[in-house]
């Protein structure tokens, strides 16, 4: 590992060459501008925190820094030399490594085998297993973790596996180490061990990029912090010269676009009434959705919002509480039952839950209503065409034909299919889980206008989002989730962004 002379993190001579400098670094995907041109210099041996809401561009930045995706434009300068950095191997060769929130190692192999994975010690082509276990044990002991090297990785807790992943990265001459929400699954004690390790790496001159939602960790560990918002790098501050209030203010988009059309409708009778509902991943949630209103659920990823929805929708079992549908108690045990009552779900993940990607647009749109399109034994081809074409036209889905495969469409148009499949069905309660993730602004506005249309027809909407402006500007009632619990409930724009974000993060 490179040991640099300086240990003072903030007072650095201006002339020092940054270990990695980004100049106009930019990434576009089809239909979205994931990272707008960003300039940022990482100083050698600093801990640089990166914060931002979900979808702000943090993951994109990590992917660019680790060579997982090639950049669209811009320069990356490593120790003063322009570098290509377009493949993971290049990143590793330079000494750039990442430790992810989810451990990406081989659970069935031993701890030692994981530490040396891809860099095994051999003797005449044969693995030197015992030597590797010995050496791995030495690495682990040196780092001060009390963990065995010879056991399968899966026998450790997730937190311990995270420490092993860090040890693995630290043992390979890493000079630039990226942590992506490393403490998400760690216990307090494990987190303390990790922090000690990070400080030690820093003292050895390793540059640390630390991504986290947890403000207290940033103030404890980091020297500087950069804020991303909507793909834009909006500012970099010295931690000693900022406050969490300032960072939160930077994270939130203050200039609310013209895209939110909040229309108010007469609020009618309750459609869904959840009372003290508990299940896997959510605990004691109570809320009511009435005709003509949007109920928003805000929280960070993993806050239990989608789990709650899956519980209501019959996808996951509920363990306690009751659900009233239009005033009558119901026991929803299957998706079909929920759909027959009048629920519609546009799920969180388009690709994994929303679409049959290698099937046609028309088939996807008609999937919930084939029973109604059936005459006798067979589907009426004319009605099938009609139903699909109606949604393609109404929602202005840009597709070559109703037979084009769903995967050939852009993100926004795919999302329209996921929503469109429920419009022929004519539901009473529409559940939209992250409906605008990876969707361009134009389509976003169309989706919000559609909300108004549904409300005017007497439907209710449950809107789940990790994007605060969306729920803030649209929801008549806003429930904040954290750690599987409903931690606060507010009326339309009743409190500030800052307060909601504070509740969701739990500062």
């Amino acid at each position: 590992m490179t040991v640099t002379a300086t240990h003072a993190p903030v007072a650095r001579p201006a002339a020092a060459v940054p270990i990695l400098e980004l100049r106009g670094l930019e990434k576009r995907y089809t239909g979205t501008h994931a990272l707008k041109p960003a300039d940022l210099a990482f100083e050698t041996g600093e801990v640089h925190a990166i914060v931002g809401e979900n979808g702000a561009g943090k993951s994109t930045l990590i992917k660019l820094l680790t060579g997982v995706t090639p950049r669209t434009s811009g320069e990356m300068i490593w120790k003063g030399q322009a570098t290509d950095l377009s493949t993971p191997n290049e990143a590793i060769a330079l000494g750039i490594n990442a430790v992810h929130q989810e451990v990406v190692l081989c659970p069935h192999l031993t701890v030692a085998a994981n530490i040396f994975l891809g860099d095994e010690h051999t003797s005449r082509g044969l693995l030197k297993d015992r030597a590797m276990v010995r050496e791995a044990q030495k690495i682990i002991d040196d780092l001060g973790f009390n963990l065995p090297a010879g056991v399968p990785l899966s026998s450790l807790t997730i937190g311990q596996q995270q420490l092993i992943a860090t040890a693995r990265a630290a043992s390979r001459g890493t000079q630039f180490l990226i942590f992506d929400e490393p403490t998400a699954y760690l216990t307090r004690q494990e987190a303390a061990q990790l922090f000690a390790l990070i400080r030690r790496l820093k003292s050895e001159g390793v540059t640390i990029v630390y991504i986290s939602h947890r403000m207290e960790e940033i103030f404890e560990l980091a020297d500087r912090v950069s804020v991303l918002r909507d793909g834009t790098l909006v500012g970099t501050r010295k931690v000693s010269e900022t406050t969490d209030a300032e960072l939160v203010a930077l994270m939130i988009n203050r200039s609310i676009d013209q895209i939110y059309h909040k229309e108010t409708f007469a609020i009618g009778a309750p459609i869904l009434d959840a009372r003290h509902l508990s299940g896997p991943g959510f605990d004691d949630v109570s809320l009511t959705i009435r005709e003509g209103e949007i109920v928003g659920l805000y929280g960070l990823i993993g806050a239990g919002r989608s789990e709650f929805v899956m519980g209501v929708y019959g996808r996951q079992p509920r363990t306690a509480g009751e659900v009233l549908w239009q005033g009558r108690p119901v026991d929803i045990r299957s998706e079909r039952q929920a759909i027959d009552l009048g629920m519609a779900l546009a799920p969180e993940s388009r690709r994994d839950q929303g679409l049959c990607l290698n099937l046609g647009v028309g088939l996807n749109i008609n999937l919930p209503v084939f029973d109604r399109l059936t005459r006798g034994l067979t589907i009426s081809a004319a009605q099938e065409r009609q139903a699909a074409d109606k949604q393609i036209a109404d929602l202005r889905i840009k597709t070559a034909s109703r037979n084009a495969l769903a995967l050939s469409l852009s993100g926004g148009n795919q999302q329209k299919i996921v929503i469109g499949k429920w419009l022929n069905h004519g539901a009473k309660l529409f559940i939209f889980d992250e409906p605008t993730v990876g969707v361009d602004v134009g389509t976003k506005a169309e989706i919000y206008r559609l909300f108004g249309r549904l409300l005017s027809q007497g439907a209710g909407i449950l809107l789940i989002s990790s994007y605060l402006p969306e729920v803030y500007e649209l929801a008549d009632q806003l429930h904040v989730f954290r750690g599987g619990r409903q931690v606060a409930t507010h009326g339309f724009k009743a409190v500030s962004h800052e307060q909601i974000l504070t509740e969701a993060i739990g500062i």
Partner: protein
Amino acid sequence: MTDNASAMAGAPKARFEFSRLLGLTLIGVLLAMFLFLSWKTTTFATPGNLSNLARQGAIFAILALGQTFVIITAGIDLSVGAVASFITVVVAMLIQSVAPGIVVSLAGVGFSDYAANIVALWVCIFAALALGMAIGAFHAFGVVKMGLPPFIITLATFTALRGVGLLMTNGSTINVTNDVFTGFSRGEFLGIPNLFMVVIIVAVPAFVYLHLSRWGRYLYAVGSNAEAARLSGVNVQAVTATAYILSALCAAIVGVMLASRTGTGNATQAIGFELEAIAASVIGGTSLFGAIGSVWGPLLGAFILATIRNGANLMNVNSFWQFIITGGLIILIVYFDGLRRQRR
């Protein structure tokens, strides 16, 4: 953000209809083989040989068709050969031991001998087919309720059913002495071999099921993305179960056809037929990753394989070459299938 980027990206190019092309290619391959063999041999284009070819192809066509339903759900059914073989034993036993009793009692209530025999045979056949469906239901139970991989549960019956059949027969062969039953496979209807007629009788409802009914749509949806199908209200378990039951039913039908053709019930017949069925299905354009397949594809695939075998015999090609040609064809077709997927 880029408002017009999505407008441009949102208009995908018209999809080149590779699947349709593949269908035409298969018919072309079959026609080319027919023309080539008619030109090169004097024995190919004879009524005797063609009806023989139709009979050979019929067996694999029906197996491949059933297999296709399962493959569309992204599963696999390794048991079809074993099921067919087991059903030859069952139907032979029923015809030899149960049918005569039915004939006697029906004759007692005034049926003619011939009519009584026909009724008795149908009773035996339906019982055998019902047993086949029960085996399919067992596979479905393993996949849907026990959560076993399709490969494993059907591999289990693949070996176990042979054992059951051998136990039932004590390892011997049961000869079917009912001439009406064994005559069926040699008979013709309107000049078309009866066994080929069975293909048509199976293919028509299969076509309605897969291509015209909502259950067929659900089969594709489950194979493409079971979670999306489930959240759209599709009963994924029932749809998946149907595929395994239909595959086993097709295998049972083939078992009855085999028993008629060979005149025997034997638990060691139809070795390797499951792989022939998978090969025919894949040659017919079915994707082993699920969600792509048709009724006519496996039928064409089966007759292409049967023609290769038949033609090679007629041209005195070393029969070992047939295996090599089949293997090469599988690689070629699946390679083009991969290309087709990439283009999409």
